[in-house]
């Protein structure tokens, strides 16, 4: 894992410290700004908003129709105003969607938080477009040959989030219960939302 991993290399740390002090001196970074800027990711680390959008879409057909057509009003319903670059990709029995950014690491952080390191790593970026089925199998998701895989390469400022299929065993669940079941990986397209332990058929 070390290969693509972060480091506390003293040279890097010294450069960052020097840069920070110069930016403050030049009025480009204010005291307390680092904590303020990163607070939302550190306090709200998971794909909270994404999970809530999906949970509501599973329960409310009209919300879902709106979400996959134009997500902007749906985001406003959850307090994220004026963001018109999110595109929701609906998984179906025939289509599985997968999100990548081959050129850098674009990611829908507005709804999923900051991306995990593997999403930003050369193995994921290089292979997702060339051999998505093999890559997903390696990551634990077998997509049947009969199902189409659509890979979305985030080359512009549009951001993509997958609307996964609702798992069996969740009939009658509330929006909050459903949202708690939804983790990050299915919203990128590298996993399914799991059927709850002990659930019978839907």
């Amino acid at each position, binding site marked *: *894992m070390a*290969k693509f*991993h*972060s*480091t*506390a290399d003293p040279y*890097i*740390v*010294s450069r*960052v*410290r*020097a*840069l*920070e*002090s*110069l*930016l*403050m*001196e*030049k*009025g*480009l970074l*204010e005291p307390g*700004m*680092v904590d*303020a*800027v*990163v607070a939302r*990711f*550190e306090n709200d*680390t998971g794909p909270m908003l994404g999970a809530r959008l999906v949970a509501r879409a599973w329960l409310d057909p009209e919300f879902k129709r709106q979400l996959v057509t134009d997500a902007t009003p749906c985001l406003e319903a959850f307090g994220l105003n004026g963001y018109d*670059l999110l595109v929701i990709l609906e998984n179906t029995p025939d289509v599985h969607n997968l999100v990548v950014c*081959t*050129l*850098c*690491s674009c990611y829908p952080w507005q709804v999923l938080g*900051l991306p995990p*390191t*593997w999403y930003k*790593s*050369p*193995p*994921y970026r*290089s*292979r*997702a*477009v*060339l051999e*998505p089925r093999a890559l997903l199998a390696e990551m634990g998701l077998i997509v049947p*040959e*009969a199902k*189409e*895989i*659509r*890979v*979305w*390469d985030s*080359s*512009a400022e*549009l951001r993509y989030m997958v609307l996964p299929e609702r798992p069996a065993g969740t009939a009658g669940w509330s929006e909050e219960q459903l949202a708690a079941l939804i983790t990050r990986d299915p919203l990128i397209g590298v996993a399914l939302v799991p059927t709850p332990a002990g659930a019978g058929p839907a």
Partner: protein
Amino acid sequence: MNGVHDMGGMHGFGPVEVEQNEPVFHWDWERTVYAAISGPMRRGIFNLDAFRRGIESMEPVHYLRASYYERWLETIISNLEEQRVLAPGELDGRIVDLTANPDLVVVTGRPPAARLAMLPGFRRPALTPARFAPGDAVLARNRHTAGHTRLPRYIRAKRGAVHAYRGCMVFPDSNAHGRGEAPEHVYSVRFEAAELWGESGGRREAVYIDLWESYLLPAEER
């Protein structure tokens, strides 16, 4: 730029390695770097496209060895130096000063005047009608610019079909080099895996990618 950052379709990087329970940041310096872009960007010292250009311009081995936030650090420094916000040698000088005196007191300065009246967001009014419509067959240009581009190599000279119109947006190939926003229509284009990868492409697989209008030609032209 045909750089090592343009990774779509490469072999040899090994399996995807997942860190369980990964923290949002691994080290304090990563938090600082994350926050350091916002002041310069809000003041119009560099834009997001120039930020990406700076990362792509890293020496290839440095790029591949660097962690994600190391790349951010490099491009922040190189962009600030390009824009003369940092003088040559200023950063190294400060490293020396801080090493000699770790408790060096930094006086918080007043922000500089904004350089550019940067418009918010990426969408811009369209001055020309869109050339393509959903369903149109298109051919991605075979263009190998040494500058910044968002047309990856694996898409070039391939045929696809317009899936959706995305709006008119700032053009990175121009904006990254300080040559203006030059907005263009953007389209989501679908490419079949067999077109991109020939016999090596999977069945029932396709790539969707957002491409600016000048990256595209009608499929008849070649």
